[in-house]
C-alpha cells in the first residue's frame, strides 16, 4: 500500500460515505415494508442482515479508520466481534431460537 492510499478519507469522501449509509438505511426500511406486504420471510432476513453488515463494515472501516490501522487493533476488534457472534449463535441455536442448517 502506498503512502497516498494510506491517508484518511477527505471530508468530501466522508459526506459520500454518509450518503451511502443513508441510502442503505432507506433500503432497509423499504425492505421492512416490502416484507410486510409480500411476506418474504427468510429472504428478507438475509437481505436485512446483509445490509446491516455492510453498514457495520463501512462505519468500522472508514469512520473508525480500522482499515488504516495497524494489525493489532484490527485483530483485537475483529476477534471480539467474531467470538461474540459465534458464542451467541451457538447459544441461540442450542436454545432453538436460531436454526442453523448444515
Amino acid at each position: 500500500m502506498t503512502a497516498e492510499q494510506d491517508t484518511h478519507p477527505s471530508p468530501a469522501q466522508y459526506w459520500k460515505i454518509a450518503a451511502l449509509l443513508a441510502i442503505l438505511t432507506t433500503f432497509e426500511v423499504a425492505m421492512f415494508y416490502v416484507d410486510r406486504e409480500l411476506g418474504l420471510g427468510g429472504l428478507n432476513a438475509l437481505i436485512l442482515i446483509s445490509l446491516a453488515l455492510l453498514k457495520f463494515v463501512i462505519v468500522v472501516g472508514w469512520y473508525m479508520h480500522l482499515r488504516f490501522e495497524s494489525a493489532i487493533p484490527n485483530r483485537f476488534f475483529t476477534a471480539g466481534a467474531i467470538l461474540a457472534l459465534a458464542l451467541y449463535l451457538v447459544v441461540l441455536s442450542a436454545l432453538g431460537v436460531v436454526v442453523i442448517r448444515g
Partner: protein
Amino acid sequence: MSDVAHETPVAHHDEHESTGIGNRKLGMWVFLSSEFMFFGALIATYLLYSNRGGFEGTYPSEIYDIPFTSVSSFVLLMSSLTMVLAHNALSKGDQNGTRTWLFATAALGAVFLGGQVFEFTEFIVQSDMTLSTNPAASAFYLLTGFHGTHVAVGVIMLLSLWGISRRKGGLSEEHGMNLELVGLYWHFVDIIWIVIFTVVYLLSVPSA
C-alpha cells in the same frame, strides 16, 4: 498553514514503539472489542424472549413505531459523520470547525436520546408495557436502555471536549488523542445501534 498539520494527523500521536499504536488507543480498541460480548448477551437475551409465548401483557414487537425509530437511526448515523468531520478539522488545525462539529455530534446524540425517552414514555403510558410486564419487555428495555446509557456517556464526553475546545488555544495535541478515543467510542455506539435496529426492530416484527 494547515499543510504541516495535515501531514501529521492526530492518529499518529502517542505511538508506542513495540506495537505501533498508543497504549490508550490500544486500550480503547480492546475495551470496544469486549463490549461486543456485553451487547451480544443483551441482544441474545432479547432474541430468546422476543417471540416466546406464555406471558401476559404487550410484547415490544407489537408496538414498535418503525418510521420514528428509522428517523432516530438516521440521526445517530449522521452523528458519526459529524464526529469524523470534527476529527478531520482538528487534524488540520481548524479549531472553529472542530468546535462546530463536536457540538453538532453532541446535539445529534441528544436528539437520539430524546427520541428514546419519547419512545419509552409512549410504550409505558400508551401501551402499558413496563420493565416488568414480561421477559420480552424486560429484555427490550435492558438492551435499548444500556445502549442509551452508552450514548449519554458519549454525549457527556463530547460536551466536555467541546467545553475544553472553547478555552483559549482550543484543543491541544494531547486533547487530539482524547477526541480520537471519544470518536472511536462514538462510532462503536453507532455500529451497535445498526445491529439493534435491524435485529431487534426490523426483524422481530412478524409479517402481516
